[in-house]
């Protein structure tokens, strides 16, 4: 059969191409452009090649921020995922209480990031905050503006408060998709509560948990607003995570070149980690199916 050649169809792709170009490719390319040049103002740029990348990758400051970032994401995942699963398991399965719980769970997710930051900034203040003042009155040595540990605890508790709901809602959705017959069969088979969790609930939640871990990893790895409002990255650099450092570099010091190189490395790290995680999980899924 003769195949008709017709290139006109490309015009149909044009709108999508333009949309993607303006929303992603062009802004990204601007960053790439900055990352390989230097400027002394006056909108004059000089080609510097990979110099900024070498500098960024060898910078102790960024290594430290990267370490803090990994630790932060690790801690909040270690808390939010098990806590979210536990709450989802404890949520009511039917009746009016379901809607009440779902609304309560969704509330923290609806609050804008900087409002969450402000709430906790005030809530945890030693002089006027309910939490900070109470702790001080109880004799607990807690001051997030001066003490590193206090600052970390505050930022972590805040994130757990803000985002555990997301894990809960995803797990709850996963749990409600399990047919009753599974629980009935488990009863007939004399399965313990733990066995029901291990062999029915957890495997059925696997997919939603993958999504929950991915979302929480990406979000927490890019966290900016809340710690910026609460601690401003302090005390010292104790809570200066990657985004906060990046903004300091790009806007505070106006080091556009290194900041651009840093952005690209940052982006690639998030992409890489997510890709590795996703590939590992889907590969083990495929193994299950074979």
């Amino acid at each position, binding site marked *: 059969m003769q195949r008709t050649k017709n290139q006109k169809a490309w015009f149909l792709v044009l709108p999508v191409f333009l949309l993607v170009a303006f929303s992603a490719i062009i802004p990204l390319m601007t960053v790439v452009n900055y990352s390989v040049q230097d400027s002394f103002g006056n909108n004059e740029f000089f080609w510097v090649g990979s110099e900024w990348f070498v500098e960024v990758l060898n910078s102790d400051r960024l290594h430290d921020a990267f370490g803090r970032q990994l630790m932060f994401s690790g801690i909040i995942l270690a808390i939010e995922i098990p806590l979210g699963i536990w709450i989802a398991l404890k949520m009511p399965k039917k009746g009016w209480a379901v809607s009440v719980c779902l609304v309560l769970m969704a509330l923290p997710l609806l609050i804008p990031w900087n409002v969450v930051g402000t709430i906790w900034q005030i809530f945890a203040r030693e002089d006027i905050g309910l939490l900070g003042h109470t702790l001080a009155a109880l004799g607990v040595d807690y001051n997030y503006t001066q003490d590193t540990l206090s600052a970390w605890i505050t930022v972590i508790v805040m994130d757990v408060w803000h985002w555990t709901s997301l894990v809960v809602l995803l797990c709850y959705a996963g749990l409600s998709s399990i047919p009753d017959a599974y629980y*009935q069969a488990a*009863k*007939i*088979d*004399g399965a313990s509560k733990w066995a029901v969790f291990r062999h029915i609930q*957890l495997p059925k939640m696997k997919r939603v948990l993958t999504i929950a871990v991915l979302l929480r990893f990406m979000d927490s790895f890019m966290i900016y607003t809340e710690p910026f409002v609460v601690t401003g990255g302090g005390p010292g650099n104790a809570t200066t995570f990657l985004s906060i450092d990046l903004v300091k570099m790009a806007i505070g010091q106006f080091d556009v070149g290194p900041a651009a190189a840093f952005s690209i490395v940052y982006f690639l790290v998030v992409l890489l980690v997510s890709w590795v995680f996703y590939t590992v999980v889907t590969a083990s899924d495929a193994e*299950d199916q074979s």
Partner: protein
Amino acid sequence: MAEIHLKDIAHAYVPGEYALKSMDHIWQDGSAYALLGPSGCGKTTLLNIISGLLKPSEGQVLFDGKDVTGADTAHRNIAQVFQFPVIYDTMTVRENLAFPLKNRGMAPADINGRVEEVAGLLEISDRLDSRATGLTADAKQIISLGRGLVRTDVNAILFDEPLTVIDPHLKWQIRSKLKDLHRQFSHTMVYVTHDQTEALTFADKVVVMNAGEVLQVGTPEDLFERPAHTFVGYFIGSPGMNFLDVELDGSRAVLGDQSIDLKQAPAKKSGVQLGIRPEFLDFADQGISCQVTSLEDLGRHRIASVSISGQSAKVIVPSGKPVPSENAMLSFDPDHTLLYTDGYLEESLR
């Protein structure tokens, strides 16, 4: 093993709306029962009450005279197989089969022996060590069946339409295998189905249900020869029983301007229907006149649709026997001509 007595059991999911109407029934130890009825008639509800997944709103469940109404499933020692396959995804086929035994603390060596035995019966020995998740629906359901059969000490094994997802040609095999197992171990078995062939081939006794009510408990023969209710009459048999509205005049049933002599005169005179299976109607030289409206050839026999004084009925005609096209007469087999008042079989005929 135990005799299961459902004492004045009734169940309503919503107060006042009975999914299962009050009934009293004894399931004899070691019998194979089929619970037959259309979808939504309360079969599964009844089954879940026996296994303890559901607590009846009224009445008691007695195992060998012992009240277990409040006891949960684990303490009733019942095996149950569900309509759709339930597989523990994280386990191999072997672990799936061993699971009910392991949970009851059986010694590993005994578990292994028993699992091998059941796997042999179900012909799945070759895939015991593969993962259970990737299998087809039939294979999964066979594993579910295996988990139901693996325990030897159960009071009863309940099957809730277990062959729904199984391929038709496998259905026969598995059903006869279940029958063999029943003969071998004589567990009490209750098999829920809406398929009459399945029920009649599997069970010693068939329990026919409709709209939350047990209409008849009997052998396949009883259900065929003496349906206790018009529903049983047309639910069982293909085509179902014929029912003709009749007037009574002494011991004669009057159909328009014709009449049929009955063996007995029933007590009640109104709301009476005459019931006869298509197998027991025969074209003859004399009898009740009718018009043949259509004829269906099923190979083995033909089914004639006839109109008797305006009421329709079916007649099974053996192949080779002519069907009159005009002035057809039907003879009614007197031993199989039954009378029903308000749906129920006349008391004197039961």
